[in-house]
């Protein structure tokens, strides 16, 4: 069913142009007073802040590794190794705990009082762990033992160690220095995906529900008589986009504050740009999907129908979510440039490492094009189906123009 087409066309000249703002205002004012909305926003904020605080606390904690030793030589090695450990992983230190014998050392490890033990063995030394040995600890101890023993041997054999080692130094140089701090970046990427998924799905369902509510309560009949149907659609999209973006900004800000508060302000500089892009991609992706959610609402006659009519929207969000978690590098690179999917994947890639500018541009471009197309098609389908009640309407029907006039 179509409304008088002149209603939509003459929008700008007949004084119905600003109506979408009134509709948007109602969407916002109704929502911000809604208890479920307030609670879900708080839950999201708290979980993001908690994730950051807890991971910060986890990585700060336990950085002092206890190493059980049985003799002064062992203690000396551990004391020397602590600097090396710190240089491998900032914040890690080793502390020697001298015990009677190897058995006692093993007991300390197995009881968890020590993280590892350094004991003499036939060939030199042995690093003993319980079920695993911390890599940093093991590396620092092995290297220190090796160089100490090497020194000792060299002196005994009267060899000039420096000459012997000449030319063996190996340096590291990263072509993509931003790719360091993998843990932090992985965390940021994970939070991006999570927040996008939760927010986009939450607000998408809200749009669909609010459309269906208007159909179900039949209020849509007086709305349609007063307001061009497209203005209703724009109002809904605008109102919910503003709310969704506000929620994301709030979440991103809370995350940034949490990082500063937990003493990781420096890290913020690493993921900061990705956070900014994230907000931009979020807006684009959300607008592209918003019309789909409106149509999903308008296809349903009752709230129960929403489960099936919102399926395409849910899949469009869930697929990139799964991809972001499981896909390999190559797949990620390709899908991160696909419209809508990119809104989740591109910020993730940007958080994980440098992304060529052209790929970002392609992602933005395809999403903008998709948004324009989807909003157009969505608006037409919305107009066709909004005033039809009774049964659930199928997407095929909604997208076929002739259905509107039958």
């Amino acid at each position, binding site marked *: *069913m*179509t*409304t*008088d*087409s*002149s*209603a939509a066309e*003459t*929008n700008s000249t*007949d*004084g*119905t142009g600003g*109506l979408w703002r*009134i*509709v948007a205002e*109602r969407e916002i004012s*109704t929502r911000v007073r809604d208890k479920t909305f307030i609670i879900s926003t708080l839950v999201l904020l708290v979980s993001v802040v908690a994730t950051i605080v807890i991971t910060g606390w986890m990585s700060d904690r336990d950085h002092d590794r206890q190493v059980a030793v049985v003799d002064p030589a062992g203690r000396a090695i551990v004391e020397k190794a602590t600097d090396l450990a710190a240089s491998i992983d900032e914040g890690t230190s080793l502390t020697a705990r001298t015990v009677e014998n190897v058995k006692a050392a093993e007991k300390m490890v197995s009881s968890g009082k020590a993280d590892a033990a350094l004991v003499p063995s036939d060939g030199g030394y042995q690093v003993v762990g319980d079920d695993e040995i911390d890599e940093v600890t093991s590396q620092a101890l092995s290297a220190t033992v090796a160089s100490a023993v090497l020194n000792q041997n060299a002196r005994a054999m009267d060899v000039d160690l420096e000459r012997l080692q000449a030319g063996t130094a190996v340096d590291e140089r990263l072509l993509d220095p931003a790719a360091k701090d993998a843990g932090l970046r992985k965390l940021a990427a994970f939070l991006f995906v999570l927040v996008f998924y939760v927010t986009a799905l939450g607000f998408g369902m809200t749009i669909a529900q609010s459309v269906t*509510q*208007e159909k179900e*309560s*039949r*209020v*849509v*009949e*007086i*709305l*349609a*008589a*007063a*307001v*061009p149907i497209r203005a209703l659609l724009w109002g809904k999209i605008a109102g919910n986009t503003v709310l969704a973006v506000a929620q994301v900004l709030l979440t991103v800000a809370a995350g940034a504050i949490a990082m500063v508060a937990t003493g990781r302000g420096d890290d913020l500089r690493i993921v900061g740009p990705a956070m900014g892009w994230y907000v931009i991609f979020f807006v684009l992706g959300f607008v592209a999907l918003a019309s789909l959610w409106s149509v999903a609402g308008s296809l349903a006659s009752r709230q129960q129908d929403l489960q099936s009519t919102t399926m395409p929207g849910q899949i469009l969000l869930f697929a990139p979510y799964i991809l972001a978690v499981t896909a390999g590098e190559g797949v990620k690179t390709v899908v991160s440039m696909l419209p809508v999917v990119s809104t989740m994947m591109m910020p993730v890639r940007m958080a994980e490492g440098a992304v060529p500018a052209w790929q970002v541009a392609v992602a933005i471009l395809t999403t903008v094009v998709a948004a324009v197309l989807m909003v157009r098609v969505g608006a037409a389908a919305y107009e066709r189906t909004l*005033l039809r009640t009774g049964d659930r309407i199928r997407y095929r029907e909604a997208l076929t123009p002739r259905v509107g*006039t*039958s």
Partner: protein
Amino acid sequence: MLETHALTRSYGDTVVVDHIDMQVRPGRITGFVGANGAGKTTTMRMLMGVLAPSSGSVLWNGEPVGAADRRRFGYMPEERGLYPRMKVLEQLIYFGRLHGVSTSDARERATKLLHHFGLAERTDDLLDTLSLGNQQRVQIAAALVHRPTALVLDEPFSGLDPLAVDSMVDLLRDEAADLPLLFSSHQLELVERLCDDLVILAEGRVVAAGPVDELSRRGAERYRVELDGEDAAWLRDVRGVNVVDVDGSVALLDLDGLDAADLARTIVERSPVIELSRARQPLSDIFREAIR
């Protein structure tokens, strides 16, 4: 004036509204009657632009109606609908604004209308906490909140008790004194009491339309005669009249050749008379005849 010109709506091969020409004149209340399924609601929805006509047009003051014109109409749809979980006053303000009224104007108007319906205390209540009758009052307030330029009301009185009907009628007479007002109803005695004009619809076509007075005078001139205690059966023998009914001393007759003055003379000569009056044809008869 709100009028339609050959307004038609069909669904597939079924023509629901068939070339309707009708006029809703300002300052007059137009009743819209017809059996169930006659096409009243479909016509009203096309008037409001909620449904597109298959062909034909709706005119407002002689010009094809536009979205801006319609935006100033007041509409009460057959299927009532407001936001169930929104506060009454807030809701009316919202509708007022959608119809182009400022927030403060809408608030003032809504408050006044709610006051008229005795709902002044309920302004901050959620709509669905109100009784159905009160929800219907809010619905009519939603149609009036923006000082409409025309009113299209689909079954506005259904489900209301007689007092509520009176209160709503008072309000409409007051608010819509010089507006075109079209309302549909099945309550014919109410339509008869309220309407100036009538449009009767049957199977999608207008079968009768015009001022109620004219319609009720259409056909034979009917008179009611009441004699003082005498049996009125002798009237059957008078030439030039058709006696429709005799009940003791009361008779109902149509003139058929005789004129009213001669009838009066004939009766007075023969019997003592208490009353001789022109009988208005009840609307229900007009309706039945029209849709036959």
